[in-house]
């Protein structure tokens, strides 16, 4: 038996990629029809219709071992270095401000504002690039503002002795440098989850994600301690270490980091709630301290004044960060290991489960102009194709094919020696009339 005596084998050879990649006989049937195989060819292959032919092709097609999907080249250098940008900008700005003479007050103010704006933009670039934070981003501003000026305000508002407060410059520097560990831990967790998405079991995924989350949190806590330690050791004159106030600024990195993690996975409401809690505690402390000045209301300031007198002004932001951080941590531990929290992630195949044909991956094949493609169930359909004046004219284009291939219908003749695959007549039903 030669290969040419078996027209189905000839078809199989010609459409090998199609048949190997198909997951369903109907997929082969659609592909064959799009490539010009019609009822006449099916009849030549001794089949009632294209569907029966496709079933035989599906049964006979070899399943190639799926190739290991190429890992996309990641710009590891950029991903590692970019989170350091806010800290670098902030440090450079503070150093420049310190170098200016004290009489150039307008210049110092302008430089400070410019440095702040640039740092904020860099923070947005690092943290909000993949997931817009929405209202959570706005709610992060009150705690950050309190970390910069809140201690001084509280010290002024409280009746009694003057409390020692931290420096805004040191707090700003610490916060800007905290962005780096936050971004690194977040990206590490996201990458790990993307890799875990190939896990075959939901339970496996949840366990892996939970372990990865706890590891990430520990890592974040450890990494957040590095900038204050470095500041304490170096203690540059333009951003002096100022005890508890600076430490409180560093502690704010904890709720902010957890909120960034939640925002990255689409849990914006939870992140906003945690940050709102931090801000609310701090603003409540300020409000109570302010209310103490009202006649007859001095008792209102007592809940704030007592701990501040005992431990310094930093106790308020530290307590706020502890409360908000606990809420965010509980929320993250509950919500993030859920598989449904990871649908916004790009799916990256990390093992050989991809069912793609070799050489036809998205990066290999040129993009075909197919505006008439039906937006099926794809998440981003394109309904903006121009309205078709007459339906059916804009037919979907199959992949281009060299011209001589059309002649296969004639060249594959079927003679008496034609064999069919044995088990493929069972699904045949009696012929039905055409429409």
């Amino acid at each position, binding site marked *: 038996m030669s290969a040419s005596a078996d027209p189905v084998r000839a078809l199989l050879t010609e459409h090998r990629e199609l048949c190997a*990649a*198909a*997951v*369903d006989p*109907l*997929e082969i049937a*659609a592909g064959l*029809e*799009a490539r*010009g195989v019609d009822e006449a060819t099916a009849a030549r292959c001794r089949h009632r219709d*294209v*569907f029966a032919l496709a079933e035989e092709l599906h049964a006979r097609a070899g399943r190639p071992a799926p190739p290991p999907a190429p890992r996309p080249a990641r710009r590891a250098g950029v991903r590692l270095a970019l989170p350091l940008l806010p800290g670098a900008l902030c440090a450079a700005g503070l150093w420049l401000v310190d170098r200016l003479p004290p009489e150039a007050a307008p210049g110092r103010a302008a430089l400070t504002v410019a440095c702040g704006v640039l740092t904020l933009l860099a923070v947005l670039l690092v943290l909000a690039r993949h997931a817009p934070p929405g209202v959570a981003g706005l709610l992060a501003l009150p705690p950050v503002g309190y970390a910069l000026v809140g201690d001084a305000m509280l010290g002024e508002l409280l009746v009694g002795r003057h409390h020692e407060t931290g420096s805004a410059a040191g707090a700003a520097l610490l916060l800007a440098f905290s962005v780096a560990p936050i971004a690194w831990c977040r990206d590490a967790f996201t990458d790990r989850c993307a890799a*875990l*998405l190939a896990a*075959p*079991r*939901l339970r496996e995924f949840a366990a892996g994600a939970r372990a990865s989350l706890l590891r990430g949190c520990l890592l974040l806590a450890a990494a957040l301690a590095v900038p204050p330690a470095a500041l304490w050791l170096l203690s540059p004159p333009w951003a002096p270490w100022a005890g508890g106030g600076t430490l409180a600024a560093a502690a704010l990195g904890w709720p902010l980091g957890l909120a960034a993690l939640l925002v990255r996975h689409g849990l914006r409401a939870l992140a906003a709630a945690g940050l709102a809690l931090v801000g609310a505690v701090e603003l409540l402390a300020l409000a109570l301290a302010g209310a103490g000045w009202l006649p007859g209301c001095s008792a209102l300031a007592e809940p704030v004044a007592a701990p501040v007198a005992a431990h310094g002004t930093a106790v308020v932001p530290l307590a706020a960060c502890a409360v908000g951080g606990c809420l965010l941590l509980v929320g993250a531990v509950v919500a993030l290991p859920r*598989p*449904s929290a990871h*649908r916004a992630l*790009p*799916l990256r195949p990390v093992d050989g*489960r*991809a*069912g793609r*044909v070799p050489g*036809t*991956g998205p*990066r290999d*094949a040129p*993009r075909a102009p*197919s505006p008439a*493609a*039906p937006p*099926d*169930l*794809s*998440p981003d*359909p394109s*309904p*903006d*194709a121009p*309205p*078709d*004046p*007459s*339906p*059916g*004219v804009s*037919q*979907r*284009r199959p992949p*281009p094919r*060299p*011209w001589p291939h059309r002649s296969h*219908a*004639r060249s594959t003749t079927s003679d008496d020696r034609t064999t069919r695959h044995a088990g493929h007549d069972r699904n045949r039903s009696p012929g*039905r009339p*055409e*429409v």
Partner: protein
Amino acid sequence: MRVALLTEGGYPYAQGELVAWCERLVRALPGHDFEVRALSRGRRQARGPRRPLPPHVRLVRTGRLWGPPPGRRPSRRAARDFGEAFEELTAGLTGDTGAGGGVADRFAMGLYALADQAAAHGGLARWLASDQALAVLEAACRRPGAPRAAVGAGVGDLLAVAERLERALRPLSLDWYAGDPFDPGLGKADVCHAVGGGPAALPGLLARHFHGTPLLVTEFRVRLREHHLSALAGTAGHAVPPSAARAPVRALLAGFQLGLARAVYHGAQLITPGDARAGRWQRRCGADPARQRPVWPGVAVGELAALADELPAPPVPTLVTAGPLDEEADAGGLLRALARVRAAEPAARLLALGGPAPEPGAVPGVRWCPPGSVEHRPAAGAAARAAGWAAGTVAVLVDARGGFPAALVEAMSCGRAVVAVDAGAAAEALGDAGVLVPPGDPAALADACLALLRDPARRARLGAAARARALDRFSHERGIATLDAGYAELAAGRAAARPRPRWARAAPGRRPAPGVLAGAEELS
């Protein structure tokens, strides 16, 4: 009669599929009350312009198949009910035949059970995007009988599938069925007419399930086939996100599309396939041939014929074809045939209507034809196309791509004698009103063209026969008349099956005041 026109990604939005066809249908039947219920496919479509509606469109409701899932998290009890129904549906999805019946039955049973639960609990809300739905899907992939490709599904695949199913099943959560003060609901409609299978037919299917409203499904391009074609394009890396191109996702979604197609074809009282191939696909998915009526997409035959009649005959023998000339359209064979024709008739030339001129070297046969023998002419609009076809002596149609051969019918409407390659639906459309040649045979094509070029009498006879055939079968009016007859038949069947209550019989033919319903347009 009250007809509910169900569309997806089309009318009344100005941009989308089959907008012009739906608009023509609605405007051609002013005797019926229409309510248009449209599912939009994207933000740009939903926010984009809409077509102006004639006054007999009483109501427009829209739903969206895009964006984040609407609603809140369902209650625990609702979630349990949804889980049971979804389990049944996924059993049908992955090919598990239960004790009760076949796969299709389980899918349809699960679908209707899910619809019942959604109606009872006020919509599925976010449930299909929850972990519970994922767990059900995971279990379905591990069942015996699941497709081979689905067995290897990872968590990411399940997420991709659940996301798409959530979008596709959103019609289950719509409030189109029960009726409220501003919307009588699909139960009050006499006929549901779904333009396209898939999600567009889902509301009609549910209206039939809840209220017994008869369903008519018009399908020019079979949804299941389009799904498979786009999945194939996805494996080749075109226009499909990488997550959807993985084999487990494709297997599960193919199972869903097949189940939905089966349920729709089983539930529809009348199915109108757009061509013979669509009819074959529908029958393959369980459509009853007795319920199928062909409705061709149609061409403005009368308009084209009137325009073409005013134009003079071409001075030189001219073959006219529909562009663009490229490999897909088998232009190489056509140009070889042209070279042969020119060997016998040196003045002959080829006119290609529409599409850009091919790049040099793109079509192998171009080098066989001297420059100037092939002319390209852009042709947009009925007048330009009629002029183009009328500028030819003989129309040559070689495009073997399937679907409705609109260019062939245009040429027939213009009264040209047609030589067509016997592929796709050409034989079905042309009948004996033209010359058919076997595919891939330039010599036969050239011979047929030469014979017609040299025989004006036969040319005229075939042209007249072609025009008569086009007028008879492929005009817009013909398809609309078929659909109108279908409406009447289905409405009569429903009226016979369920006698109207006494209050309705007391005032026969009473219509709701136009202002009440027309003012109820909802922008959702």
